[in-house]
């Protein structure tokens, strides 16, 4: 298997796995229990919380454990919306957000009468800041724009957005940082809420956090006990919570080295792919090096994926290519050429890959193009 889909998920690192095994066996009692073992686990969870807070330059009390990125996004969007609807019912998000953001917004529109503005992006896949300026109003209570787009790697103009939102004191700014964590510097200053996930950085699936600044008021989405200050009910998945601290520390330590490696892979592939007939690159040139999105104008995504899959490659694109020709909502924002939209493929990289994988891919892709293009 030649894995080119690290933006989708990553293998668990050996160090995390080893500690997980130990923690899972040793610390099975409920972290809310007040006998010594329970207190011990609670302590470990809070150490993990503190470690993450230090790495992200926030306070430990600002970290809420969730079951992953999607839940954290739901909590941010719905939590802010319900708690602050007395101040306004308008929300602004980019049109290229992850489905957990977009569908949370649709949910609010459909079931709770919220007004949502979806910001367009330019051909580089970046939010058009001017459009935000036009859309934001006094009754806007939340702006949510991701740090890095998951399909194209386009880095969003977060600093400019911060400046605009800052002028509206009823409005919070949330950023989904899942594809940025461990891959680039993240500056959380002036960001009110931020989402992170462990399994994209060699950690455990089902493990995420929402960073929520102290001044931000949210309502819980999962009602339950006293866990996480009453904002997220349910017995904590303590081994996962404990391990996210280690996962994040390792990611930060290796960030510069990994990014250097991945950058070279990305540049090489971008160069080679640009030389090929009928291939166009969709990722902007200043995108995160961890993602490279391209289209083959002569072969639809699904056929390309099948052909690459037969050669042992795991890549990502659209899961369905039915008669209605569903296309990527992200690429569709950037381009209108139907063949470009039908033929998108996303490659995403890791330091775990080798030059053999990368160079082999170019040869195999050319073969597929010659045969089916």
């Amino acid at each position, binding site marked *: 298997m030649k894995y080119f889909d690290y933006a989708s998920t990553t293998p668990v690192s050996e160090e995390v796995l080893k500690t997980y095994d130990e923690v899972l066996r040793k610390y099975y009692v409920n972290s809310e229990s007040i006998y010594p073992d329970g207190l011990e686990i609670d302590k470990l969870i809070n150490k993990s919380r503190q470690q993450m807070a230090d790495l992200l330059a926030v306070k430990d009390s600002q970290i809420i454990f969730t079951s992953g990125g999607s839940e954290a996004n739901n909590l941010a969007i719905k939590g802010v919306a319900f708690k602050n609807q007395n101040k306004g019912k308008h929300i602004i998000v980019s049109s290229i957000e992850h489905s957990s953001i977009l569908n949370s917004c649709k949910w609010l529109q459909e079931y709770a009468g919220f007004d949502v503005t979806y910001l367009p992006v330019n051909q580089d896949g970046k939010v058009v800041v001017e459009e935000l300026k036009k859309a934001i109003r006094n009754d806007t209570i939340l702006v949510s724009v991701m740090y890095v787009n998951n399909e194209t790697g386009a880095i969003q103009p977060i600093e400019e957005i911060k400046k605009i939102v800052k002028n509206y004191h009823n409005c919070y700014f949330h950023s989904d940082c899942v594809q940025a964590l461990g891959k680039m510097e993240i500056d959380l200053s002036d960001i009110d809420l931020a989402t992170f996930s462990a399994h994209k950085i060699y950690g455990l699936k089902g493990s995420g956090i929402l960073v929520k600044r102290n001044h931000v008021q949210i309502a819980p989405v999962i009602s339950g006990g006293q866990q996480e200050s009453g904002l997220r009910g349910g017995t904590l998945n303590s081994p996962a919570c404990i391990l996210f601290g280690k996962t994040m520390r390792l990611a930060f330590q290796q960030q510069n080295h990994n990014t250097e490696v991945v950058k070279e892979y990305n540049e090489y592939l971008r160069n080679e792919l640009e030389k090929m007939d009928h291939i166009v690159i969709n990722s902007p040139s200043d995108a995160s090096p961890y993602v490279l999105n391209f289209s083959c104008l002569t072969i*639809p995504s*699904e*056929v*390309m*994926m*099948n*052909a690459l*899959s*037969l050669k042992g490659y795991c890549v990502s694109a659209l899961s*369905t*290519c*039915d*008669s209605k020709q569903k296309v990527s909502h992200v690429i569709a924002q950037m381009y209108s050429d139907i063949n470009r939209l039908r033929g998108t493929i996303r490659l995403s990289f890791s330091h775990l890959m080798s030059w053999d994988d990368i160079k082999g891919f170019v040869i195999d892709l050319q073969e*597929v193009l010659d045969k*089916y293009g």
Partner: protein
Amino acid sequence: MAKIEYEFILIRFGELSTKGKNKKDFIKQLALNIQRALQKYENLKYERTRDHIYIHLNGTDPKEISPVLEKIFGIRAFAPTIKVENDLEAIVEASKQLMMDKGGTFKVITKRANKQFPHHSDEINRAVASAILKNNENMKVDVHNPDYPVVVEIREQATYIMCETILGAGGYPVGVGEKALLMLSGGIDSPVAGYLTMKRGVEIECIHYASMPYTSQEALNKVKELARIISSYQGRIKLHVVPFTELQLAIYRNCDEEYAITIMRRMMYRIANEIANRNRCLAIVNGESIGQVASQTLNSIGVINAVSDLPVIRPVVTYDKLEIIDLAEKIKTYETSILPYEDCCTIFTPKNPVTKPHILKVEKQESFFDWKPLLQQAVDNTEVEIIYPNSNNEEDYL
């Protein structure tokens, strides 16, 4: 008293009781099919007589193997049976236990084959019935149409008691009628065609044409799943997967678009004939139904059939789609068949396929290209897999 344990399952034959001299072969084949299907139950022992097959349970729960038996062709009915000593008190006690957790109507039928037994049939009926009635207030007697006919068979060595007769699938045991090759497409019709063929005692192998990368691994997995579902009627099934892409591309490049489907079907039949011959299959089976699509008009069927030396059997040829769907639901292939993986890329589907192809025109179209090497290549590169009813790898994790 300990909980009643069933001793064996009594199996009654279907249509084969009319088969005269061949009967022995039929029973042998049926016994083999049963043993194959129940392979994983190691405690079972089998006994064959002229009129019945007995599966001695040795502790195996009959509820576990009933669903398997229900699918084996050649079985008219079967009944889990308990064995007690020839003693009235023992018979009464066992019957009582047997009916303890049941509810509804019953009737006791005693067969006193052992005339030495000191009680008359009528006496036994009364004793057993009153014990059941006294012990379980949910039971009532109905001598005409009972839910549970409690059969007490008194023989030389022991007495056998059964209270439930489960209907089998009928038909002939698969394997007595030689072998045929089923064209398994992944749609609704072909698994039904396979089922109906097996029901007549014909063993089937399956052939599937894969056009990777234009069709996906998911589409192929779906075909394997269909093969797995119908394999339970014969214990296992051989699936031939033909790599068809090269031929399809050649048709696409060398023939008129409107004739592409007709020629494609002819290529499929040619390959099926070759694979059938190599595997001693005596006929080709498929799910064609008159008029359903352009290639299934009588005209098309004729032109396509012309390349087949082997007889082509079309069990659902006159069925309405709804009739086929009913059967597909019954054999539980429908839900899998309607999964949307097939043909999701439409580049090979012409907009206006010809419904009345002319044989001369088709032959002329085919004459522009030398198909033999590609046909040979497809046959040679065909991959074979044996599929079993329980061949889900995921089981290890569950």
